[in-house]
């Protein structure tokens, strides 16, 4: 009974990587499906902005509209999640030197989190400014 609650380390070592791989696979697919409509919406929106002149005021107004702001935040979150999973696989597949592999995976996590937080903060600050 106790062993069911306190999983022995060997059990965790055996099953954790497998569950992580399944999560990775599943999240990559779910984010991919979500990105289909979102990226088509973004392309259409960027054309609309370009056609109306790409001025600072137009971009500011476009981002600060509630629907756009929510969709941009959703898009950024799903995009950077999908991007992180994809680049992680590329690093795991092609970088065979142990220290470089670990270093690049950590750098990826930090860089993706950083740029994601910065862009989300920017969208919110534009919304609050207007």
């Amino acid at each position, binding site marked *: 009974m106790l062993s069911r609650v306190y999983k022995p380390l060997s059990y965790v070592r055996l099953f954790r990587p497998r569950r992580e791989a399944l999560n990775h696979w599943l999240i990559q*697919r779910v984010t*991919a*499906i979500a*990105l*289909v409509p979102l*990226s088509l919406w973004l*392309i259409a929106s960027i*054309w609309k902005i*370009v*056609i*109306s002149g*790409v001025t*600072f005021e137009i*971009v*500011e107004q476009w*981002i600060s509209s509630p629907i756009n702001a929510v969709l*941009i935040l959703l898009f*950024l979150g799903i*995009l*950077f999640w999908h*991007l992180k999973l*994809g*680049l992680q696989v*590329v690093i795991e*597949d092609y970088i*065979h030197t142990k220290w470089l592999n670990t270093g690049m995976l950590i750098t990826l996590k930090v860089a993706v989190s950083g*740029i*994601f937080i*910065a*862009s989300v*903060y*920017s*969208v919110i*600050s*534009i919304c609050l400014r207007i």
Partner: protein
Amino acid sequence: MSQGPRPLSPHLQVYKPQLTSVLSIMHRATGIFLALGSIMLALWVISAASGPEYYGWSLWFLSSWIGIALLAAWSWCIFYHLCNGVRHLFWDIGLGFSLKSTYLTGRIVVITSFALTAISWGIGLTMLCTR
């Protein structure tokens, strides 16, 4: 006994390029290139939040010839990665695995990606010129 470096996959250089393998590599290549596009998108949003002066810099870069070339390349990469991604999703549910359908869907992906890029730029540029 020391064993020298072990052989590592994928052995890209020993295979003759085929439509299937080239499309598979292109999926990764476009993915990596689109990651750079995502950083550009984030920088564009960050520049808009930082004020007109910073926004002017990102607009200057994106409307330069190198910026427009990058946008054109990114737009095709989005459509290619999207179409081939849908092809992957069909494989995930077990459809389209035969050699014949793999080649057929591969050709459809390439043609559709170029068609969608042309449609996007066609509509966009027409509306830009006739506004």
